[in-house]
């Protein structure tokens, strides 16, 4: 099940909200746990058992680490076992096909593995479960002796299938004691509707353009068609993913949970380093805390720092998908961040601000070409078309049609990828009372209209892909 789905919005969510607020508070976690298992099983009936296995495994290993808390070698063995098993499970379902394909290619073998469907959200819930065990090991979190509470943490439906990756110690207290009031609930509704609108009204529109462009042979596109395709994808992936995060955060608030922000207007960044502090924040900080720092971070000299950056970013790319293009995409950012770290950032900081934005937009869009394309040769050919290196016309009727039909969508996309709404909120705080009154009266009306528009689009559209679904 996805959030931008009529069954979720008009059947699942009202039912769960009703039951949640009707039952006594001591049963609420059970309600959420049951709802989360149903939510997951709705899309993946068989793989709900895989998720439960992950919960059980990490619960027992967490207990093991706590049991051996004073016996460091054994404590390390349990941790290592936990990390290895978690990664093995993830590796089996997500990367074994890639491994087999490359072994066959390298050694001329013909090993065969039956097609394994990728369980939804496996990258997210595996990383969450690992973070629990590692936090217990580091004494950053208390061991959870209630398996149902741990199961709720791992499987909680708002963030189960596409993040944000929630750290156990961020929600440890909230599992047992959380505030629910009108402020939080209404903020949750607001975030949920904004997220839905980003996903359904914006991201899906960009998706249909990007998919049409990227399914065409790259050499047959005109220059401007290629550019409009990558701009569409750039906006699609942002609104899709940040929209989903907004929905997850909003839903969390409706049940009393506060999750950390996952996006902070990444497209206004002035450097690639800044971009990755604003994009998929929970993933970046996960890899920083659980891989980069344990490898030594930047504390062991420039060469080790460089190594760590390249390794972490390549693995970050690989986390996104089992293919060389994803790894190349990750390595691409590793190189850029390293360059910035070792001197480039000083030059960038001296540039005129619009040029800084242009630099980041440029490198990010090039990165998205590799991220979106199916293979390297397509990526290269696409870039050649973008930069008019191959003999493509400047524009064609396809570009004219896209531009004619979607200029409003692109305008909205550009506007809402900047912090215009926080600016409006700031202005509102400083404006006279009648203006503030107008704001408070119109805000619920506008939000409900957005919800109705989302509903109209969902009723009519069967085209509703989630990009980060299969990570």
């Amino acid at each position, binding site marked *: 099940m996805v959030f931008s789905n009529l069954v979720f919005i008009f059947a699942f*969510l009202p039912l769960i909200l009703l039951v949640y607020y009707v039952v006594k508070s001591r049963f609420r976690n059970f309600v959420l746990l049951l709802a989360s298992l149903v939510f997951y099983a709705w899309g993946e009936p068989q793989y709900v058992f895989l998720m439960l296995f992950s919960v059980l495994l990490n619960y027992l290993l967490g207990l093991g680490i706590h049991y051996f808390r004073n016996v460091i070698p054994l404590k390390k063995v349990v941790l290592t076992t936990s990390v290895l098993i978690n990664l093995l499970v993830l590796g089996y379902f997500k990367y074994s096909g890639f491994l087999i394909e490359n072994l066959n290619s390298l050694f001329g073998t013909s090993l065969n593995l039956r097609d394994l469907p990728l369980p939804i959200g496996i990258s997210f819930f595996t990383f969450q479960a690992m973070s629990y065990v590692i936090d217990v090991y580091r004494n950053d979190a208390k061991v959870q002796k209630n398996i149902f509470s741990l199961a709720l943490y791992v499987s909680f439906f708002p963030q189960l299938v596409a993040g944000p990756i929630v750290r156990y110690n961020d929600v440890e207290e909230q599992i047992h004691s959380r505030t629910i009031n009108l402020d939080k609930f209404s903020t949750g509704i607001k975030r949920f509707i904004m997220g839905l609108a980003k996903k359904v009204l914006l991201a899906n529109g960009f998706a249909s353009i990007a998919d049409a462009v990227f399914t065409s042979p790259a050499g047959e596109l005109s220059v401007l068609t290629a550019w409009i395709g990558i701009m569409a994808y750039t906006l699609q992936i942002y609104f899709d993913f940040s929209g989903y995060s907004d929905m997850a955060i909003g839903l969390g608030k409706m049940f009393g949970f506060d999750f950390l922000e996952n996006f902070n207007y990444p497209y206004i960044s002035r450097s690639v380093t800044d971009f990755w502090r604003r994009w998929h924040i929970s993933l970046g900080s996960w890899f920083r805390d659980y891989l980069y720092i344990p490898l030594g971070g930047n504390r062991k000299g420039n060469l080790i720092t460089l190594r760590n950056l390249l390794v972490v970013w390549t693995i970050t790319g690989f986390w996104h998908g089992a293919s060389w293009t994803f790894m190349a995409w990750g390595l691409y950012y590793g190189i850029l961040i390293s360059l910035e770290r070792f001197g480039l950032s000083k030059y960038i900081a001296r540039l005129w601000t619009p040029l800084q934005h242009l630099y980041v937009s440029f490198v990010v869009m090039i990165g998205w070409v590799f991220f979106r394309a199916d293979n390297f040769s397509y990526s290269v050919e696409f870039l050649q078309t973008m930069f008019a290196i191959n003999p493509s016309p400047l524009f064609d009727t396809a570009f004219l049609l896209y531009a004619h039909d979607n200029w409003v969508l692109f305008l909205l996309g550009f506007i809402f990828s900047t912090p215009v709404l926080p600016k409006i909120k700031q202005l509102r705080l400083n404006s006279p009372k009648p203006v503030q009154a107008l704001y*408070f009266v119109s805000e619920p009306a506008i939000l409900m209209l957005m919800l109705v528009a989302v509903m109209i689009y969902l009723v009519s559209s069967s085209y509703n892909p989630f990009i980060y679904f299969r990570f």
Partner: protein
Amino acid sequence: MKLERLSKKLLTISFFIFLFCVGTFFVLSPDRQISAAEYRTLEQQPNMTVKNLINGTYVKDFEGYFTDQFPGRNFWLKKYLDLQRLSGKTYLNRYYVAPDGWIIPEPRYGYSKELVRQAITNLNRLAENAAKEGVEVFYVSAPHRINAIEPNFPDYIQEGISRDKKEYFLSLVSKEYLKVLDLEQSFKAKYSQAELKQMYFKTDHHWNAQGSFNGYQEIRNFLSSNSQHFTDQQKEYKTIDYKSNLLGSYNRHIHYLVNLDTDRVSQILPKDKSFEKFKISVNGKASSFKDLYGSAINKKNQLVYAEIFTGDLKEIKIYNSDVKASRLLIVKDSFANPIIFHIAQHFQETVVFDIRHNTDSLRDFLNEEKQFDTILFLYNDTNLGGPLFEFEKAPKQ
């Protein structure tokens, strides 16, 4: 601030009311069986079994059911098209609505040559075998609207390849065994674009009574020159206009956004009502011209194409005792429906066969029936492959 608090309460209450109202409507509303606008049956509540829960089919079926039975679905679908129009989209559900009311489908830019070659192979083989048995075979390519009329697209829309596909198809036809009448060529030689526009429905993909009658006249001239079994009949015809509105096929896809009185409903029939004297059977049962042709006229205010002329039926037999012994088989699609009687009047016995609606293959049918003198294929020039050209095996039901 009080107003801020009130705003939050308002939002929370509206949200809950909206969600619960829609959910309640869904539960309380009876399930609809069909969508008239979409011309299809709607998903019904799926049965829940352990097997289909585990393999995930129940979930998919339930989501399809929930979407199909969503309260006010048709209303929301129309609103969606309104939003698309407001945002300046060129195509609405893959159709362009020109300022003059013509609904034009989005052009296609590719086709499978393999499918076309397969169709031609089957057609040529059938014609060759028929010729060996002394049966004359004719192929009439009736012009679909997208080929007959220059579309009134905006400048930024590239023309599609449907004419290229038709030219490719006709170039492969065996001239030795098959005589071909390309009605698009005939029409364009005779009529201007303005005249051609009078021959087609604006909101439907078919030709109208005038277009089909003009097509019949070309077919009559063609058969008169080429068929040994054709008996010419000179008649006077009259145009009968009706007040009913057309529920055009293209208009249906855009939820009837274009006014229903855009197209005229009419028939062109002999003044002497000679068609009513024919002996007719439909799918083996006796019938009459009045029951078969324009059966819903004067009974309904809104008609689909099939209700103005004949529908797509498995088999129609027409016997005209006024002409010499001759047996015609018409293998057709819906473009033939307005003129099957016009053509049949020139032969003593006519069988009208629609491959799509038969359980037997054309080959089996030919083996069972007594010999035909003439076989006439009458397809529109976008039907250039697929089941209509599979003569050896029965269509999938």
